């Protein structure tokens, strides 16, 4: 090792900036709002020999944190084996096959070899979520697909650009198989241009520091990232930490799917063992292996955000036991739910297993569903067909520092939700309310954040509603004696009669007429720590702000409030220490509240179905 650590740091920062600039370029030029607004994309640099992740944009969608290195590796192997034609400079491969290192079909990867002196120095690759890639339903999220062919067009790696020129024959095949094809050329150009930006910036970096130095730095940074991750992992006590997370159903067979995880640390590595998880399923809740691995990586990066995104950092994470489970889907299993739902449940299993081991770092489970509600139909006033998506957030888990955030975006996403005013301007719907899902935060010393509660009405025309959500059967897991967050609830009121999906969180093509209403309440986050130890003032404040009822304060937190206390702002008082409960009385702005009951664990969180 001859490189000084300063040059290493400088090159590391330089590689990161190349990726960040690719991300920026892609988002700004993209047409699809999923990419341009929701940042459902990622850009990175990958090893020429095995596709290992060298650097990736810091604002890429978290679920892509590990996937592109697998798709790049598969591409390199296929080229080596003669299955895929070898590249020439200026070529760009397109691929969306989930089984070749992907997620679902909508995540389309581009890969471009980066040449120095006639040799491939590394690969530049990016992923963008296309609004549609064909299949049974617009947008690709079919809740009832039973094979990948129903989910859309599947592309093996083919050269969409040959020596810098778009292959119009391949492009025409793609356009003939997807919806709203006329705008895709903008996304294709944006995605390709981002790789070009990467090439220009990488040239500058290599010209400045020299090819050999950068190559050496990449190798050294890989080792150092592994060392860094190992040093963080030593915070996990040795031994096994286990948890299970549950998916409501696969959308076809109404049986819960289990993710069973055991995390074991020894001196050299930390093993994530999924042995005992459910078998491959009939419906679209299968996960391809690249997504399963990436989900573990992103969960660990949520826990240790300081670690760089690189293959080296993932090296000490040994993932096993997924064979023959729904976490290692093989062709032709349907997989549309893997990136948006299964990945979040895998992350939840990681959080739940490690929360007791790393109590200051890990939060109780976040809502963990993308809350995908799609409405497709015809708007007679605007004389056009439409497809509307309402993706919703939910509560985050309580944690060592504070209560969970309300209405946060999915664990695997970083996108903003569209405003109600934009939705109503574009689609024939009228929202009745868009509010806090009261009572939904799991009780705890630090409670979970609250989910979202919205209802909307179809105003005219006809439409069908589809739901791909989760956590309808059981709420996000509480941690360290905290209660689970409230479950996700879906209700469709047709002609005045209420209908709840048989699978609770998933159903496809429910016909709606004008005046029909869709009502959704998203999960709250899990609670953290014993709710009986939550400061009574904090409980009273939540009641005063209408986040919990006085009854919930009593049953969930063991705090009774007099009517006056419910109305009055709490003033700081000398609060009795928790071990004096149950009988201490605390003055609260003239009113009174007191702890009831003993220190026994709280009653199970009642699913808030009343008042629906």
């Amino acid at each position, binding site marked *: 090792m001859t490189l000084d650590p300063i040059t290493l740091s400088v090159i590391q920062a330089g590689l990161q900036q190349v990726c960040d600039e690719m991300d920026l370029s892609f988002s700004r030029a993209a047409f699809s709002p999923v990419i341009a607004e929701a940042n459902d994309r990622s850009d990175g640099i990958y090893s020429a020999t095995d596709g290992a992740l060298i650097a990736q944009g810091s604002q890429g969608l978290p679920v892509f944190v590990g996937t592109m290195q697998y798709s790049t590796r598969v591409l390199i192997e296929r080229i080596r084996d003669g299955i895929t034609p070898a590249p020439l400079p200026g070529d760009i491969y397109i691929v969306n096959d989930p089984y070749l290192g992907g997620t679902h079909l909508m995540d389309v990867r581009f890969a471009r070899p980066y040449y120095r002196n006639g040799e491939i120095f590394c690969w530049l690759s990016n992923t963008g979520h296309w609004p549609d890639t064909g299949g049974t339903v617009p947008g690709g999220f079919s809740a009832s697909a039973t094979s990948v062919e129903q989910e859309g067009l599947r592309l093996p790696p083919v050269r969409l650009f040959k020596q810098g020129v778009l292959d119009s024959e391949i492009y025409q095949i793609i356009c003939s198989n997807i919806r709203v094809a006329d705008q895709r050329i903008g996304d294709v150009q944006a995605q390709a241009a981002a790789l070009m930006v990467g090439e220009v910036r990488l040239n500058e970096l290599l010209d400045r520091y020299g090819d050999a130095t950068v190559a050496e730095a990449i190798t050294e940074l890989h080792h150092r990232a592994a060392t*860094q991750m190992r040093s963080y992992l030593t915070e996990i006590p040795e031994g096994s930490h286990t948890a299970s997370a549950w998916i409501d159903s696969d959308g076809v067979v109404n049986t819960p799917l289990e993710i069973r995880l055991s995390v074991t640390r020894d001196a050299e590595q930390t093993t994530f063992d999924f042995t005992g998880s459910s078998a491959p399923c009939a419906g679209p809740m299968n996960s391809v292996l690249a997504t399963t691995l990436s989900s573990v990586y992103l969960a660990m990066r949520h826990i240790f955000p300081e670690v760089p995104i690189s293959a080296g950092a993932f090296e000490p994470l040994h993932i096993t036991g997924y064979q023959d489970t729904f976490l290692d889907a093989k062709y032709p299993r349907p997989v549309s739910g893997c990136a948006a739902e299964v990945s979040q449940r895998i992350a939840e299993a990681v959080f739940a297993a490690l929360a007791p081991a790393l109590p200051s770092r890990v939060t109780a489970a976040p809502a963990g569903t993308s809350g995908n509600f799609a409405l497709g139909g015809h708007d007679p006033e605007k004389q056009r067909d439409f497809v509307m998506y309402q993706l919703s957030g939910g509560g*985050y888990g309580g944690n060592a520092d504070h209560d969970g955030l309300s209405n*946060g975006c999915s664990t695997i996403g970083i996108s903003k939700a569209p405003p109600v005013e934009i939705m109503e301007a574009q689609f024939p719907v009228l929202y009745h309310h868009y509010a806090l899902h009261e009572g939904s935060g799991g009780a705890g010393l630090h409670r979970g954040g609250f989910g979202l509660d919205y209802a909307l009405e179809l105003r005219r025309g006809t439409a069908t509603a589809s739901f791909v959500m989760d956590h309808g059967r059981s709420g996000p897991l509480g941690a360290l004696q905290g209660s689970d967050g409230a479950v996700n609830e879906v209700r469709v009121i047709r002609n005045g009669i209420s209908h709840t999906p048989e699978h609770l969180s998933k159903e496809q093509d429910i016909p709606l007429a004008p005046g029909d209403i869709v009502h959704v309440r998203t999960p709250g986050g899990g609670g953290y720590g014993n709710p009986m130890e939550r400061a009574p003032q904090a409980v009273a404040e939540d009641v005063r702000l209408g986040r919990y009822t006085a009854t919930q304060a009593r049953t969930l937190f063991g705090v009774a409030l007099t009517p006056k206390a419910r109305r009055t702002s709490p003033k700081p008082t000398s609060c009795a220490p928790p071990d004096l409960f149950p009988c201490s009385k605390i003055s609260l702005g003239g009113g009174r509240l007191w702890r009831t009951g003993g220190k026994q664990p709280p009653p199970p969180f009642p699913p808030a179905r009343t008042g629906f």
Partner: protein
Amino acid sequence: MAADADMMTGQIIGVDVGGTFTDLILMDPATGAVRLAKVPSTLDDQSRGVMMAVEEAEADLPATALIVHGTTTTTNAVLERKLARTGMITTKGFRDVLELGRRTRPQAYGMKGEFIPLIPRDLRLEVPERMDAEGRVITPLDEDALAEAARKLLDMGCTSVVVHFLHSYRNPGHEQRAGEVLRALWPNSYITLGHALLSESREYERGVTAAVNASVQPILDRYVQNLAGSLAEGGYAGELLVMNGNGGMVSASRVAEEAARTVMSGPASGVMAAAFTGRAAGITELLTYDMGGTSTDVALIRGAQPAVSNEIEIEYAMPIHVPMVDVRTVGAGGGSIARVNAAGLLEVGPESAGATPGPICYGRGGTEPTISDANLLLGRLDPSRLKSVEGGITLEQVREIFAEKLGHPLGLTPEEAAEAVIRLANVKMAGAIRMVSVSLGADPRDFALFAFGGAGPLHAAALARELGVPRVLVPARPGITNALGCLVADLRHDFTQTLATPLDVLDMDRLAATLTAQASEGRRLIAREKVAVTETRTLHSVDMQFIGQTHLLRVTLDAPEITREALQKAFEAVYWTRFRVRLDTIRAAVVNANTSVIGTRASLDPATLIPAAGRLPTLAAACRGTRPVLFEGTAWDTPLYQRDQLPADAAFDGPAILEQMDTTTLVPPGDRVTTDAIGNILIEIGGAA
């Protein structure tokens, strides 16, 4: 306009209150004399500091024609949440919009974070009323419920109130009627209607903007009245103008009506000063670089005009959507902490030692190596200044900490470690600045770096080299740039009209008429102000996109009239420059028509900022000695110049250190310094003979 004559003869004062110092520039147009003052800010009541600065500058208030004031009152109130108790009345079913936000989290990684809405849930009340997206009434406004809600908010002690109804940008009828009802029963004028400040869709952004406005209104009002009172007591009879975040000014009597517009007024005035200085120096393309203790502000100036944005987010989930100079903050400053991480690699930031305890060299108990400490160890800052700090820190103590925390784990001497800290900090800052300029569609290499703030001129040359920026401009008074901005600020009005029409069906006459109407409204508003204007400029632009896109690109127009073909061409050219992509099969759309009307005031002569009398005839005379300074491992015997004493036509090569009241400018070896007639220093990167 009768006051014009007075304006031209009386003194003019620009005064800016920053986080640490209150700066003042006084100019006498008759004599060209300039006086400066710098006093500690009094953050509990900023007007005391202002009056102290007025006193220090020995301003003759009765003879003063105009005072322009930049204030952080509203920014601080928002960031520290020291707000007036404010209630909100919303459409039934939507009171939680302000608490739910846009479904985000503070960082991409890490599932923690906190968010406290500006108005607590119990002060957000709902009333029956509803419009649809076309502005049609679905539910009429229940005026009784509205009055009852208002009374309830008053009972709960609210001073201000916001009315925030869905789709009011489309049809403000219900909000306007609610305003009438409220004015009859609300005891003061602190009533904000959601559509009044920002008439565009997106209920969260509009609601937060309105909530910010309402909750800082009483605070700003009280402050400005106080200050106006103090100034009047001192004999001042003229107009007090307050800087807005868009770089324009508004009279104190009206500023509180749209208090949200004053957020970011400080950073805006710095950028205005940069534009002014650049214009005077003949450099119209600038990247401003204001490095302070905890953060660095960056902005773009093109054609001597600062970029203005309607979409500033001043902290996590706090969007304020009124036109503001587009200043982006990068989380690196003199107090950024350096450490060696578990991978054995050096890291700088994002943690900062802040003001307390601050860098080690502040002597306030700081024990973490920072960028400022590294500059000190390398000789770039004057070690003799250590003597004046309270804690009695020695250079040796700083060395020891660098040896222990950085040098030892990295296998470097303390000085090598310090140089590594600066190098990495510059690489990271350069990267962040590059991202800012690229996101604004600009290549930093096409700009000059305008360096100001306490630490800006110290890093500027190295940063410029890193960015490929060819030259650095250090103004005459880098430490009081914001006050200068107040002095030279323009009157400014910005207009945006949403058209959202495909270009091929756009009525080009209507576009021209819209832009022309915006321009005449702007000129009318400027004529109304009691301030003399020498020139009124009008800037037209349209925001465009390809149909289906969500991001906008701004296309500037020379005149309101343009043909469809010319506009299409202009857009394609902008798009090509930005993305290197041609999309000839997709139609373009015009989303917004924009006009800014700018009234330029009689300008001061920038040459007076450094008094000619203080200048010495030769370079050698201005040199107070030398000090060894480390550059790339080599100690260079570096001359120390008194900036104010440099001859007006000085030209020399680095290395050099230029010292002045509150800023140090570092010129590395290989770069060349020239000075211009108005007191600026130009550093040409790699320009040494």
